[in-house]
């Protein structure tokens, strides 16, 4: 049975698993690319915070290449943990393994890796980057959906009104949107972004009733 990927991508965690197991090569590639867009940067920031003398980009690259490995995803499902925490732990273990291997090659004793204790800075760097990556990915998905519907100007309206604080009377007419319809257009854009976010949030074990609280938490990661 075909497994369509919607424009409100990334889809739900249940769809991830279906695509990982039975999806076509193209579907798997698209899904892996979307997940990597969300999680690659936070993983990089996280590993960089450990200050290890290793190519952390290589570690993250390898992890992203395995992101749709059914065995990897099964392990995550069994853990019942949010996906990002599962990935973060996997990245840390991979980094430790590489450091041990490096030490063995250099003839050093494989003793304590105390310097790899996860610091608050590492977690904060991860959370901040995750919050940024997630909203960028959701915004991109919403813009693609609007482009496909010939409604790209509604994204501009959303930005002008909701981010730049311009009143509808000022920003809607130049975009060819009647002022009366502007509120509905903005609500439609907001709904598209939220739909895109929900796909990832479901994998992060965020219940529908808790989405608003989660958005406040994500916003707080980006605050001083």
């Amino acid at each position: 049975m075909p497994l369509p990927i919607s424009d409100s991508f990334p889809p739900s965690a249940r769809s991830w698993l279906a695509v990982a197991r039975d999806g076509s090569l193209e579907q798997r590639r698209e899904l892996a690319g979307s997940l990597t867009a969300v999680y690659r940067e936070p993983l990089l920031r996280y590993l960089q915070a450990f200050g290890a003398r290793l190519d952390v980009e290589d570690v993250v690259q390898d992890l992203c290449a395995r992101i749709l490995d059914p065995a990897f995803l099964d392990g995550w499902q069994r853990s019942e943990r949010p996906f990002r925490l599962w990935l973060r732990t996997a990245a840390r273990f991979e980094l430790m393994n590489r450091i041990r291997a490096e030490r063995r090659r250099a003839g050093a004793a494989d003793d304590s890796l105390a310097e790899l204790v996860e610091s608050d800075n590492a977690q904060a760097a991860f959370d901040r980057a995750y919050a940024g990556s997630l909203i960028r990915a959701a915004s991109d998905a919403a813009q693609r959906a609007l482009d496909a519907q010939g409604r790209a100007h509604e994204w501009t309206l959303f930005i002008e009104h909701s981010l730049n604080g311009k009143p509808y009377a000022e920003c809607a007419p130049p975009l060819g949107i009647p002022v009366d319809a502007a509120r509905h257009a903005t609500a439609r854009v907001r709904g598209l972004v939220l739909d895109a976010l929900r796909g990832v949030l479901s994998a992060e074990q965020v219940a529908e009733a808790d989405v608003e609280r989660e958005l406040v938490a994500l916003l707080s990661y980006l605050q001083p």
Partner: protein
Amino acid sequence: MSAVVPDGAGPDDARCAALYAALLGARLPTDVLIRQWMARSDAASLVDGILQRLPQPGGLESIESIDAERHGSDGPVRAEWPPSLRVVGTVRYVAMVALALHEHGVWRSSRPASELAPVAAAMLPIVPDPWRAPLQAVLARAQVV
């Protein structure tokens, strides 16, 4: 405005935060909105404009008249107002607190310091000299009493 821009946070972080704030809309706590809004490039000019309209210390307009405006039907901070107006209202409110502290040394308020402090911090670098001490007092007080 550097006082309210976090270390290591770039303009892209500010834009991402603004997107989350836009999704949450009026349901966002005012202090979070203010921190978010203060990162905008035009925040300094707006705060400056607000200060120009407020009575200066020792001026003719009394704090009572400003307070009457605050408590009137069009008071400056109302939860149902759009986020941008809530921010403007709170900036005005902090200015009023600073003025009252300057003129009378006392201000009674139930507003939490966490809400007022970021605005006061943002105003400090751009206000005229007479405003600095009272704004620093706003920042220093855990509770504005």
